[in-house]
Every structure is written in C-alpha cells, then in structure tokens.
C-alpha cells in the first residue's frame, strides 16, 4: 500500500491518533503527495468512524430488566446441582450473622437448630440387619445414654457447637449447649411435649406434638447401635490410633453422601468416638464422643419447668386459639416461600422441619424468609399452622398438596372434619374453602 518509507503500521497508528506530533506531521506531509496512502488513511478513518457509530447502542432498560429477572430465576432453578455451595454458604451466612448484628440472638438459636438437625440426620435410615437385631436388646437394657456432639462449622468466624445429649428410656431426651440453650422432650402417649430455653432473651417455648409415629429405626438407641455395629460393614479399616490417651481401632464406611468413622476400644469393644463427614458440607464435621451408658440422670435433669426468671415466648400464648385460618396462612406463606409456588411436600409431624432444611439446601426457597413475612412473623405463622395439624385427630384429615402449585381453584389440597361436624372442610389450591359431605370428598 505504501512502498516507500511509510509503513502500513504507521498509517494505522496515524489514523488511531497514536503518533507523536512530530511523527504525525511527517505522515501528514507524506499523504499530501501520496495518493495510495491518502486513500488508505481515508479507508481507515471510515472504518473507525463506523466503529464509533456502532458504540452507540440504544438504552433498553426493559431488555436489561427482563434479562436480569430471567437469569436470577434460572439461577434459582439450577440450585439442585448447587447443594454443596448452598450449604457451605449457609454456614458462612450463620457465621456472618453471629459476628454481631442485631440478629445475633436469633442466629445463635439457628446454629443450634442447624447442629441439631445435622444430628437428626443420624436418626434416619433403617436399623435392620443381623447385628442390629442381636445388639439392640442388649443396648436397651441400658437405662440412660449420654454423649456429646460437636459440630464443626468449617468456617473460621463461626464457633464450633458442642451439645450434650442425654436419653433416658423413660422417654426423655435432652440436648444442651454450653451456653445454656436447652431443649427437653418427654414422650407422651401419641407424641411428645417439650420445652426449649433461649438464654439470651431469658425466654422459653413450650410445645407439644401429637401423632408422632413410633418409628423404631429412628430411635436414638438404634442410632448409637448402628454406630457400634459399624465395624461389621466397614469398607475401610484404619490402623490403631491414639486418641485421648487410649489406643483405638478405626472403621470407616462410606454411604451416600456421608462418611462415618467409628473408633472402638479393642479391650472393651466399646464405641468411644464417631466422626461424621458429609460430602455436601465440606468442613462441617460432626463428632460424637463421651458415650456413657447408665449414668444416673435425675428427673430434674429432664424437667419441663422453665426457670423462674424465664418468660414464655409470645407465640405459644394463644396457641389454643389456633384454627383453620392459621393453617391457611401457613399454606399461603409456604407458597410465597417456595421458588415454584408449591405447597409443602408434607405437613404432618416433625418431619416438616427436616424437609424444610433439605429444601433449603436444594435452593427451593426464594429467600431466608418468604417475601413480606420476615423473621418476626414467619416462625409464628409456621408454628401456628403446624399446631393446627398436630391437633387434628388421625383419620380426620387428608393432605394432597404435594407438588401442587398455588392457584387452581379446582384442585383440592387438604380436607378435614372439624370435631363434631357432619361435613368436611375442603381447602383448594387457591386457598378457598368449601364444605363437602363425606361421600363427596376428593378421592
């Protein structure tokens, strides 16, 4: 293009305005007499002008808004594959909350709840198998069982939670943290009643759950027995290791997303320590230790009486007036809370708490609380809704809201027979209610 002392590169630099004044002057002088170079610069300038005109794009806030909204929705629905991240960041979330904002008290309670729930995951799974069958009787001869459960959070800023757990085969359960959060449960004929103490606010919550199914596999004794029997099904045997001055044999089993390691004293065959790691929550390990059988535990240890200076949390004060409206509010809240506006997968029994946690891990909720509800109202509404259910006698209600989204006035999701009533009340997916005779109930 320029077969003389001006290079093509220099013409580009000239058109881009990158040259020094002196050099630019030289080029300018050159192109005045050189037609090919003048044309080349003309083309370069047209090119750059065209690029300039392309840099102006119309602002379309509408497209941006819609794109933002869509991508956030897509991100939420993708959460199924993100459970690892989810739980990790939930843990970090607790950590941040605890580090001292006004939610600290609430968060401290939440940490306890989280730890207990992780502990609860021990109580799932079936307790069948020969070892279990042989040993469980023997174990049941023990009258009490105590152990400590330490939950590592895997987050630097968040404290490790240690809980002391006690069972007595009179149907008592107690879990206590070092800083005084205590929950005591007492088995009743059909379920359990209990009390939770919240030290920072010197308050307590009394609760009662009816119709709790008796599931032997979830018996705490069975859980400990499963741990004791683990060596028989271990897929990895760890060499002897000294822990707290005792030489112990280790056995490890990988199941689903959990790795369980138990340490057994070879002399006494006693379970000394169990370590649980969950693939979904890296860094969050649970360690069970200090197992004791038949320690003497006084009645007062399982007392359902609150300490004198404690006051009841308001939520229980009018629990007796809980009615259908509260249950509908609970359902409405839930559909506001879920990303797909669906009703809860189940409503019966304490399982719902666990299911809620699982759903949270899978990212099925739109936020920590349903929009427009918040930390103050949501627990109350949930509590009252569940109290309503727990008070309905078995066989007088049916729930069919699993996987049903809010909205269709023709889809029944729940029906029950109020006490003393000849007809049933049917709640539909748009949360309107109608009466139905027993023979007209949904199938």
């Amino acid at each position, binding site marked *: 293009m320029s077969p003389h002392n001006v290079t093509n590169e220099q013409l*580009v630099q000239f058109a881009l305005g990158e040259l020094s004044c002196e050099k630019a002057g030289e080029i300018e002088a050159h192109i005045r007499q050189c037609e090919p170079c003048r044309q080349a610069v003309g083309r370069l300038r047209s090119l750059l002008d065209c*690029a300039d005109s392309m840099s102006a794009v119309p602002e379309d806030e509408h497209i941006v808004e819609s794109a933002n909204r869509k991508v956030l929705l897509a991100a939420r629905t993708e959460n199924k594959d993100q459970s690892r991240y989810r739980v990790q960041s939930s843990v970090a979330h607790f950590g941040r909350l605890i580090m001292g904002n006004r939610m600290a008290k609430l968060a401290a309670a939440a940490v306890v709840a989280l730890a*207990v729930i992780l502990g609860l995951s021990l109580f799932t799974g079936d307790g069948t198998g020969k070892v279990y069958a042989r040993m469980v009787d023997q174990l049941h001869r023990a009258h009490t069982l105590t152990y400590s459960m330490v939950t590592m959070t895997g987050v630097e800023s968040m404290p490790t939670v240690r809980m002391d757990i006690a069972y007595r085969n009179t149907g008592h359960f107690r879990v206590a943290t070092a800083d005084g959060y205590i929950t005591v449960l007492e088995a009743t004929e059909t379920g359990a009643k209990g009390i939770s103490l919240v030290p920072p606010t010197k308050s307590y919550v009394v609760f009662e759950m009816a119709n709790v199914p008796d599931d032997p596999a979830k018996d705490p004794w069975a859980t400990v027995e499963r741990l004791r029997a683990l060596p028989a099904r271990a897929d990895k045997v760890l060499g002897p290791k000294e822990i707290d001055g005792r030489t112990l044999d280790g056995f490890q089993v990988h199941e689903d997303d959990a790795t369980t390691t138990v340490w057994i004293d070879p002399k006494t065959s006693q379970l000394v320590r169990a370590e649980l790691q969950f693939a979904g929550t890296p860094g969050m390990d649970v360690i069970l230790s200090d197992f004791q059988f038949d320690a003497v535990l006084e009645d007062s240890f399982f007392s359902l009486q609150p300490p004198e200076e404690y006051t009841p949390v308001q939520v229980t004060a009018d629990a007796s007036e809980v009615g259908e409206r509260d249950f509908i509010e609970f359902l409405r809240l839930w559909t506001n809370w879920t990303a797909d506006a669906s009703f809860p997968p189940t409503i019966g*029994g304490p399982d719902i708490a666990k299911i809620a946690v699982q759903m949270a891990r899978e990212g099925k909720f739109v936020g920590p609380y349903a929009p427009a509800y918040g930390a103050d109202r949501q627990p109350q509404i949930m509590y009252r809704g569940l109290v309503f259910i727990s008070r309905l006698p078995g066989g007088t209600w049916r729930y069919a809201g699993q996987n049903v989204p809010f909205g269709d006035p023709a889809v029944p999701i729940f029906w029950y027979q109020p006490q003393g009533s000849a007809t049933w009340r049917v709640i539909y997916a748009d949360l309107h209610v109608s009466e139905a005779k027993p023979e007209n109930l949904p199938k």
Partner: protein
Amino acid sequence: MQPGLGLEMFLLPGSTTVSDQSFENLVNEHGGQVVRTAARVLRDASLAHDVHQEVFLAIWRRWHRYDGQVNWTAYLYRATVRKALEMARRRIVCRVPAGALKETPRGVTTNGPDAALQTDELQQRLAAAVARLPRREAEAFVLSRLERVETAEIARIMGCAESTVRVYLHRAVARLARELHEYLDQ
C-alpha cells in the same frame, strides 16, 4: 420418639444466603453493561439478551469459587466480549451463506439518500468481519473501539501488556481495512 424440636427449627434461615444476595446484586448492577456490550458486538437485542443469560449463568455455576476479590467490571467485559464474539461467529457460520457478502452491491457513501441504510450495512459488515478476526485481535478491537475502554484497562482485562494490546489493535484495524476495502472507499 424422635427428638424433633419445636419452634427453633424455623429460625433456621432458608435457602437464600448472603452470597445469593450478592449474586443478585451483581446481576442488577452489571446486567446493563453486559447487554450493551453484547448488543454492540452482535447488533441484535435478543442475541444480546442470550449472551447476558449465558454469561451470568456461567458465573453462577462457579459462584462458590469466587473469593470476593474479583474485579467484576473487567471480568464481565472479558466474558461478555468472548461470548458475544463466539455467538457472532456461530451466526456467520449458520446464517450467512458463503459468498453472500460478495454478491451484494458495493459502495458506501455518507451523504446519499440511502446514507443511513448504507451506514447500517457497513456496520453489519464490520460486525461480521470483527467476528472473523483472530480472537485476541477481535477482543482488543471491541474493547478499544466499540467499548471505548482505555488501553491500560484493556491490558488488565485481557491479561497482557499494554504494548501487546496495541499490537492486537493495529493488526485488527489493518486486517479489517483490508477485508472491507471495497466498502470503505469513499
């Protein structure tokens, strides 16, 4: 009996976390930037919208790996330009039959009755030619000439020296001028 607890279960925060919130903030804060950058490269609002979705979803899928030290403006420039160029290349392959560009009438003037139409045509050709450039040259050209980003910042975004950015840019301009030769003659 199961040790199901009472009320405190529901004090457990649900699914959305601080990190989710910050992802939402990121999208809301930078969504416009991503759409506009993609629109400059692609000259098509609905394709720009698609780039936005792909860029942010890719970030979301790796969200747990980001450590809070990310310069999101720079990161999003790079990701968006790459994704948009990739889409522009695909579009050339998929939609424009080979030779189609050469068969259309040539010549661009800036003051004829069809000036706007011709400017638009030249823009289309330039956009297509940019997509055919070697990747790094295309990125440098887009960031410098369409996004009007300073060379020092482009160097940071592309992870190379400023002098390298200039080399890419010069090559890109020279190559584009050569390729669009007949449409640029006044």
